């Protein structure tokens, strides 16, 4: 059995990279390093999907998480950098955190393990080159309504993003800087309020690059 001797090594390497980078993402001091470690975790997960012959899921993971979500995380770190606070531990004991982590993990794993659909799955993997086609067939024949619902969700998300990030629409058309913005921007930014885009987050002022 060549497979039995070969697969665990590849899987162990991927698992080690994923787990170590996940621990680093939680424990490192520098937020940027944490973000980069999280990206490495996403890459490890993508490699795991590829290892399981889930080609499409693996590449979707790379496209969405490694490509887009990583950029979102980096921008979030960039935007909130000035609001650095001295972190105080929420709970005094790490045992409490461990207990909560086990509870969350258990509540996720238990339904998965006890699910009857797990036993219905074929033991061997599907033909790998046919997978994307199969997903496409199912998406177009059986899951058309969920696809449309998904379009609605994505549209709602887009509208929500625009509404949240561009909240001060009337202010933006006002050429004179409002006192609120002047107070906020202070000496950091000399751009007029017309260009300053405030959000509900801590970045109340902006400086155009």
């Amino acid at each position, binding site marked *: 059995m060549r497979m039995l001797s070969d697969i665990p090594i590849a899987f162990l390497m991927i698992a080690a990279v994923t787990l170590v980078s996940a621990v680093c993402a939680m424990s490192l001091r520098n937020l940027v390093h944490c973000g980069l470690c999280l990206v490495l975790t996403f890459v490890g997960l993508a490699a795991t999907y590829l290892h399981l012959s889930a080609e499409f899921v693996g590449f979707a993971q790379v496209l969405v998480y490694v490509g887009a979500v990583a950029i979102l995380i980096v921008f979030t770190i960039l935007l909130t950098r000035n609001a650095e606070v001295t972190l105080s531990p929420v709970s005094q004991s790490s045992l409490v955190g461990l207990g909560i982590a086990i509870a969350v993990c258990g509540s996720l794993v238990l339904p998965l393990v006890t699910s009857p659909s797990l036993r219905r799955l074929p033991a061997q993997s599907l033909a790998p080159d046919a997978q994307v086609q199969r997903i496409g067939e199912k998406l177009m024949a059986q899951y058309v309504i969920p696809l449309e619902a998904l379009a609605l969700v994505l549209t709602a998300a887009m509208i929500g993003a625009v509404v949240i990030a561009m909240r001060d629409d009337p202010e933006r058309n006002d050429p004179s800087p409002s006192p609120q913005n002047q107070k906020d921007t202070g000496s950091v*930014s000399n751009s007029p309020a017309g260009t300053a885009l405030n959000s509900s987050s801590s970045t109340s002022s902006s400086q155009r690059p």
Partner: protein
Amino acid sequence: MQSQLSQYLPVLMFLMVTIGFAVGTLAFSVIAGKVGRRTRTKDIPYECGMVPEGPGNARLSVKFFLVALLFVLFDIEVVFMYPWAVTYKELLAKHFASVVGGMLSFMGILFVGYLYALKKKAFDWKS
């Protein structure tokens, strides 16, 4: 399954070459450069000119965040179009209505969101 993963061996080699190039360049500059000759003046961002003042991390426009959010959304849309595009030709004869109509309505619903963002000048960087 093993051959499935081993077909990505070129990708792994490519990654190793790029990482090796980055690390090698940095290591070479440390080895070949004059590491010991550092002064306070040499370490400031501009060796000649104004002495920098104020915090180094300037505040950034929240527009960056909006662009990243919209990028994530469009990325997910593309992920769902990809399996459709792969099977488009084969399924066209069998289920014409759902293949064409399903994707058209999918994109039509998303187009509403796109129009909203366009109307709100979310893509307009200067406003």
